[in-house]
């Protein structure tokens, strides 16, 4: 079981599409890929697109929180979209919705960030 992370720079937004299972084993890949893209690229904001994320546990929450801090320290915003019910419950339980805005899909997420920047 693995995880694929597809990263795309769109204007000043980094779109991260996660597919598969995000746990302690696969969290490192997400961490390094996103860290590097945020350091090298010119993106201010991040959209986490989770339509095809089939599984996530607290290790996933850890890596998302870590990137949130990274984005926020540079004055950017992080939003999530296409969240399935089980991932939604995890976000809710951990209070992540207090810091992350949720959107239905990538399109609405992008337009919410265009208002911001």
């Amino acid at each position, binding site marked *: *079981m693995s995880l694929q992370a597809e990263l795309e720079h769109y204007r000043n937004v980094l779109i991260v599409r996660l597919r598969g*299972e995000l*746990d*302690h*084993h696969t*969290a490192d890949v997400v*961490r390094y890929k996103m860290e590097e893209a945020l350091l090298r690229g010119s993106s201010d904001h991040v959209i986490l697109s989770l339509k095809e994320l089939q*599984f996530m*546990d*607290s*290790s996933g*929450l*850890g*890596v998302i*929180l*870590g990137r949130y801090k990274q984005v926020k320290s540079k004055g950017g915003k992080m939003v999530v979209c296409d969240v399935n*019910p*089980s991932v939604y419950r*995890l976000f809710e*339980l*951990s209070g992540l919705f207090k810091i992350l805005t949720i959107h239905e899909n990538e399109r609405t997420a992008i337009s919410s960030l265009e208002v911001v920047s």
Partner: protein
Amino acid sequence: MNGTNEMTLSFSARSENEAFARIAVAAFVSQLDPTLEELNDLKTAVSEAVTNAIIHGYESDSSCQVTIEARIEGDSVSIAVLDNGRGIEDLELARQPLYTSKPELERSGMGFTIMENFMDHFEVSSRVDGGTRVEMMKRIESKKALYN
């Protein structure tokens, strides 16, 4: 189903085995015909317990073994996740939401909170240098109708 049905699983404390462990338990429990949500709750709780055993119990020493004991009885599944690792010094503190002993690893500190919330019963016992045992139980609702 009459009587109990049990299985025991031991594997190396490697992070690759986190997915194996939760899928194996899910396959075992599938005979109770759980809903997708119930199955996901179980998988998440097992993933948390196994990850804790690997990261905290064994500090990622892959020569060590994690053991899972699962038992189906009626409409319930009981799962124990055991390690012989370094144990937890302060259980009360460890169970606090958002507490982590390893913040440098980007741990969220939500593992125990998730296990408590996703399962119907949750208990943890631990001894310093004597290992940790997590015991959890969940009733599979979709089976309830048959037993009432």
